[in-house]
């Protein structure tokens, strides 16, 4: 597609006075538009985080130390976050497989892979709940913490909370779709519904990539 001729299709598609996104089922187009709006929401959170972090004269707590876990007497930085990252990537992999098997009309494998994705998502939320519990018990609040700038807690709970909410909603969404696919509600279609739920799930992973880089590593 990456050619001048490919680019010329933009004008033709948008100027065709009929469906703009040709070959894209309406549900998929709507999911993309929803995700675009979600991109703006998460970007506003991350921009707000950048703004408070660059404007505060108080020292920012060292994320590497805050999110470290002690294993066998050794303090390992960001251990839980790294495990959560790999868990989410694994779930993205199983989701991509589910989409693929859906289009191959292998319903059984597709349903199993969606359930595996939901499982990894659930594990992610559980680890996040543990992380919240740990930080709250160490005195982190949206308005204070024991290490540095107060804004740290506000950013942390806002950003990871909103992301965790997306993962939780995603798990519910995956389970509903798995159930409906299993019941045969989409047998008359191409199973593009699996690709649509997949788009949402990959987006959740995508947001985590940015949160991991900006909030935990920076």
């Amino acid at each position, binding site marked *: *597609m990456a050619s001048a001729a*490919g680019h010329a*299709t*933009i004008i033709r*598609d*948008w100027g065709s006075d009929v469906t*703009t*996104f*040709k*070959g*894209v089922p309406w549900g998929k*187009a709507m999911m*993309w538009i929803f995700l*675009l709006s979600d*991109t*703006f929401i998460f*970007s506003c959170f991350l*921009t707000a985080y950048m*703004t408070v972090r*660059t*404007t*505060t*004269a108080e*020292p*920012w*707590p*060292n994320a*590497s*130390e805050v999110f470290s876990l*002690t294993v066998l007497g050794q*303090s390992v*930085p*960001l251990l839980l976050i*790294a495990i959560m*990252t*790999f868990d989410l*990537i694994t779930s*993205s*992999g199983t*989701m*991509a497989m589910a989409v*693929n098997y859906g*289009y191959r009309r292998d319903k059984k494998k597709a349903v199993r892979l969606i359930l595996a994705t939901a499982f990894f998502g659930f594990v992610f939320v559980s680890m996040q709940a543990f992380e919240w519990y740990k930080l709250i018990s*160490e005195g982190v609040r949206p308005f204070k913490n*024991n*290490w*540095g700038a107060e804004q740290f807690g506000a950013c942390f709970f806002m950003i990871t909370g909103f992301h965790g909410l997306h993962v939780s909603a995603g798990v519910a969404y995956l389970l509903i779709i798995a159930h409906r696919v299993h019941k045969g509600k989409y047998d008359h279609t*191409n199973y*593009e519904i699996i*690709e649509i739920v*997949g*788009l949402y799930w*990959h987006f959740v992973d*995508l947001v985590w*990539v*940015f949160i*991991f*880089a900006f909030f935990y*590593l*920076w």
Partner: protein
Amino acid sequence: MSSEVGQQHPLSIYFAVWVGLFIVSGLSYATDFLQDGLMRWGLILLFMFVKAGYIVAIFMHLKYERWALIYALLLPPGALLVLVGLMWMESDYTWLTRIEYFGEDPYAVAKPVVH
């Protein structure tokens, strides 16, 4: 390549991207052990964009969509860069004001974390 018959690609490409994401995530995590500085921040951003690119292009199949959809999705977030730029430009002014008028100490270091 329209998606009229859905997105059918060999499984191998997903496995390749999956393994790639694992490796890049590992590298990304490894940056935490580097000294703060341009090198570390550059690598964090590099690995972040590589991961994001793979997820959007392959897992979300954007690479295989028509340009009409690709541009509809990738151009609007450009507005966000303007927002980031505006907030960034203003921030040193706020920071200096806080030091100048609130007497905050810009050299203070965060307290050590004890778990």
